């Protein structure tokens, strides 16, 4: 399998006077799985089209394998793309759909059919080869769309929200399958989604975008545990990270939670970085809370349990601290009852602090 690294260098893009991408700068290595994630309209598809060569950019450059692809047509960039709507050719059979790019590059028919057959076996769609897209289910079309990309054996695969038209169950299945394919082929992939779970589960690198601006670029762990700002913290993760307004007190050692009569030490990551009196947001992921045992050495908060939602593996609890609502995620079997006040331990080795004014992590 061919592979290639990809660099997106300071890309800007405007449509007329509407700026859609601002100085996007991302680089990935051979065989990485990059997920571009962000709310709809943030410019993910536009960036993907620019990588593909379907759209021009206003400034910046794209390099594949260290070479600029400036001015190259999509077919000359050695990329393949899977579209959100699948974009299958309606009048062609599955076999013709998958083989179309090879046909256009004038590959002899026997070789072409062999390649198509191989891909069809890989995706388990050999029995569908003679059908037309209109006769396929959503999941089958999705596989054909992937087959059309796989058959080209490109340097880079581009996926634009390929799973968003599938039902929930199929989406989870295909997610695993795409991940397996990535591991088996070792291909370089750029994958666009607005679904943070897809991003977390599939990526080796995540780029979080908002309003055409890159918010954070890093591994899934970076993004999840050390979000660069409040947007990333709340966009990634479900339920989202709890953000509690607080003020630094006690000579930069303590946090006074606003709207509640509670104090916590400053999280480890921010110790000595926040001056006395600074207004901050304390970020705590729901699973960074746990029921405190009597022997706990972690700082604790006394919280009032408002709602308990068992989901199977976890229990989500809606907690109240003064006027603040906090979501917690406890292992099944945790003993909590609605209406009681319980003591919860806060994992300060993980908790993060944001500047309340700028929203940027401290």
């Amino acid at each position: 399998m061919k592979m290639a690294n990809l660099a997106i260098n300071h890309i800007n893009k405007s449509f007329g006077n509407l700026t859609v991408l601002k100085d996007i700068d991302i680089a990935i290595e051979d065989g990485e799985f990059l997920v571009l994630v962000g709310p709809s309209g943030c410019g993910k598809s536009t960036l993907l089209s620019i990588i593909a060569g379907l759209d021009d950019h206003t400034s910046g450059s794209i390099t594949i394998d260290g070479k600029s692809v400036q001015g190259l047509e999509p077919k000359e960039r050695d990329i393949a793309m899977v579209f959100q709507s699948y974009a299958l050719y309606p009048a062609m059979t599955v076999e013709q759909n998958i083989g179309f790019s090879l046909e256009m590059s004038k590959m002899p028919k026997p070789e072409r059919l062999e390649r198509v057959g191989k891909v069809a076996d890989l995706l388990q769609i050999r029995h569908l080869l003679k059908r037309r897209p209109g006769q396929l289910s959503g999941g089958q079309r999705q596989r054909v769309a992937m087959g059309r990309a796989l058959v080209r054996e490109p340097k880079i695969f581009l996926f634009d929200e390929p799973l968003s038209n599938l039902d929930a169950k199929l989406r989870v299945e295909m997610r695993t399958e795409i991940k397996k394919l990535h591991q088996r082929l070792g291909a370089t992939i750029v994958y666009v989604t607005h679904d943070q779970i897809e991003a977390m589960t599939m990526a080796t690198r995540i780029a979080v975008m908002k309003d055409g601006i890159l918010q954070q670029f890093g591994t899934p762990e970076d993004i999840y545990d050390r979000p660069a700002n409040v947007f990333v913290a709340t966009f990634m993760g479900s339920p989202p990270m709890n953000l509690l307004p607080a003020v630094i007190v006690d000579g930069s050692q303590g946090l006074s939670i606003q709207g509640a009569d509670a104090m916590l030490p400053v999280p480890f990551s921010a110790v000595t970085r926040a001056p006395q009196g600074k207004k901050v947001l304390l970020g705590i992921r729901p699973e960074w809370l746990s029921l405190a045992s009597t022997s706990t050495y972690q700082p604790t908060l006394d919280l009032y349990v408002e709602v308990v939602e068992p989901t199977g593996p976890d229990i989500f609890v809606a907690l109240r601290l003064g006027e603040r609502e906090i979501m917690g995620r406890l292992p099944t079997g945790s003993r909590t009852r609605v209406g009681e006040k319980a003591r919860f331990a806060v994992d300060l080795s993980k908790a993060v602090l944001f500047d309340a004014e700028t929203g940027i992590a401290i």
Partner: protein
Amino acid sequence: MSLSKRLGKIMPAIVLSPSLAVVTLCVYGFMAYTALLSFTDSKMFARFDFVGWRQYGRLFESPRWIIAIENMAIFGTLYIVCATCLGLFIAILIDQRIRFEGVFRAVFLYPMALSFVVTGVIWQWLLNPGLGLEHMMRELGWTSFTFQWLIEPNRAIYTIVIAGVWQVTGFVMALFLAGLRGVDTEILRAARIDGAPIHKVYTRIIIPALRPAFLTVFVIEAHLAIKSYDLVVALTKGGPGVSTELPSTFMYSMTFTRNELAVGAASATVMLVTLASIIIPYLYSELRHEPTT
């Protein structure tokens, strides 16, 4: 049940029944009446002496009817082929996101707003050697220019094709344009990624995807061709001689000027059956299942 409620229930039936009655009587009733007449020996007035298929025999022995059918074949084929190709071609050109697209669309659609008689008269003037194209070319200094198709028995039928195509092309274009606009833009992007040159994109992907539009266009053109009457009357009046006779003009002259009511009815019935054999399968396929995407 209150009066207003009861009234509300039967209101649709009350409102629909007059038009239903009129359609049943005036359309289907007279169709049946015409079919019935074709089996009689009616001359100037309707008579009900049944003679079986004799009038159909006479019809197909009449050289004038054979000419009409031959003309229909020439006219119908050329009309459908030319209008389809030209309409598709213009639609593809307009689909290139040209400027002033709205203006072009209106310009091409406009002929469809004219009645066939007006179209016929316009083209009669344009093609008239003494008035139109030939006259103009000679005025401009090309004195040897001749264009006399309108008065040449072997060529006159083509003038009807020209006028007919001129009129319907814009409409065909609009149908194809709607079809082209319905093609998912992601498909076109996929084709670019697959490295398909523009002509392949049209021949392999877009035009095959327009199958439903082709079917609609064909049915509309076919029925316009078979029932075209006014165009011929306004342009050539079936002449020179009977060289541009079509089944419809034949039917008219048999029925209303030659006192052969039954033969006219037989020709009308033949036309009806031909039309029905095109349209019924179409309606059937349209109503039966959705076009596949």
